[in-house]
């Protein structure tokens, strides 16, 4: 189990979510979510598929609008930002997609350089190359720089996806199902990478997952989501002491695995 990061600053809230509601037609996905992410903290949002976990982080990064409630990221209310301000804020928030979402037509190196060049027109080719090398080294895939995404394994794609977000030096990382569809050994590698990113880049993260091992290994605190609400929040031990059927079934599944 992960030791709680001693550098968490409980007085500095980087993401604050209050009474968040979101529906798609008659499907009420989020029903009053409250969550605080502190600087240096990894919060795991654990829940079954289809409970609105991904919707939550898509709202945080401004890909979806909430129906009600407020989302404050680095002191800015996401709902009241202009397009330009939102773009500026997004440079501080890294988003690692479940599918990695790498650009198919570009090599790994180009995938990583793309956001850097787009957001900094003055940057020299040498600086870009140096930054690409640093983040590739951080995810342990320096040798893949000239490969196309189609030539990579699922785990490698996830790593490159994380590297692509790191290149903009974000303060916050949002991971959408980082271990979904990976073999157990690759899952361990990804979990270690998430912790390494937290240490090395001093990021605060929200990790969306239904993988109990991932939650246990990467979370400083855990929030369990059921039917659009958090039914338990706290450290891993606190949460799994609670008398809740969903939490029990998660534990049971993990035990069988």
């Amino acid at each position, binding site marked *: 189990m992960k030791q709680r990061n001693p550098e968490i600053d409980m007085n500095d809230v980087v993401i604050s979510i209050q009474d968040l509601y979101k*529906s798609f*037609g008659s499907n009420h996905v989020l029903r009053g979510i409250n969550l605080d992410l502190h600087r240096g903290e990894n919060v795991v949002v654990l829940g079954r598929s289809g409970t609105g976990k991904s919707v939550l982080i898509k709202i945080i*990064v401004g890909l979806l609008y909430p129906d009600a409630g407020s989302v404050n990221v680095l002191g800015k209310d996401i709902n009241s930002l202009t397009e330009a301000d939102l773009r500026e804020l*997004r440079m501080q928030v890294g988003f690692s997609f479940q599918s990695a*979402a790498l*650009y198919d037509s570009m090599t790994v190196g180009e995938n990583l350089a793309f956001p850097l060049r787009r957001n900094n027109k003055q940057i020299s080719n040498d600086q870009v190359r140096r930054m690409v090398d640093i983040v590739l080294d951080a995810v342990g895939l320096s040798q893949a720089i000239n490969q196309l995404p189609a030539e990579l394994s699922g785990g490698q794609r996830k790593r490159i996806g994380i590297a*692509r977000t790191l290149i903009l030096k974000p303060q916050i990382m949002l991971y959408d199902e980082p271990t979904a569809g990976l073999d157990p050994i690759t899952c361990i590698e990804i979990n270690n990478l998430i912790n390494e990113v937290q240490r090395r880049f001093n990021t605060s993260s929200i990790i969306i997952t239904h993988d109990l091992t991932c939650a246990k290994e990467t979370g400083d605190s855990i929030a369990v989501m059921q039917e659009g609400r958090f039914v338990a929040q706290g450290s891993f031990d606190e949460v799994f002491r609670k008398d809740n059927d969903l939490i029990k079934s998660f534990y049971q599944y993990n035990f069988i695995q």
Partner: protein
Amino acid sequence: MDSSNGQPDKPVISPGVDRFFVNVHTTFLFVARFFRELFRFPFETREFIRQCYMVGYKSLALISLTGFITGLVFTKQSRPSLSEFGATSWLPSLIAIAVIRALAPLVTALICAGKVGSSIGAELGSMRVTEQIDAMEVSAINPFKYLVVTRVLATTVCLPILMAYTALVGLMGSYLDVHLNEQTSITFFFLKAFSDITFLDLFASTFKAMAYGFTIGIVSCYQGYNATQGTQGVGKAANISVVISMFLIFIEEVIIVQVVNSIR
């Protein structure tokens, strides 16, 4: 923020009619956003040039073949009717009028709607369903400017150039048939061909080609950019891009011909 949001629980009129009006509204917003982003810095020059290469240069082989055959076959089909009146000498100007006024813009547009439209629809559709467009958005990149504006601009700029090229190879096809039958020199053929072509013909054809190019670009980008439902949605986006583009091209053709004829 591009992703879809909540939909009303109950339809206002009926689901089909509601969907139609919602589509009209979102298409209007899409076109309005195109013009807004078009004049906003920074310009995506490098991506625009890349798209011009994809739309223009990569279509040349197909356009050459189709244009040449169109000119050749049209000449062959027209010859018997004209020779009945002993008027085969009119062939160059007849073919030039037909090719420049109607065939070249239309053939180029239909070929590009099939080749370029489906390719843009499928490419953007695939990027949408694999979250690559969302990935651009969260990387603080404006995907609309990078993907949509460059493509629409490339089709709008390249179609008139391709149209001029189609007209040229079409006339070359026609010349081949005329030369084989009447041993006409190339200089005489082209002098005859352009003797009845006015500035209005050239202007109208260029304008038509630009309108068709814009239509192909905007329709394909709209379909691809708003694709849903996974791989099935990608196929649907590619298919609908071609169908709607072709449909609109024919409607535009009728309208532009009416307007030009009223000016002539």
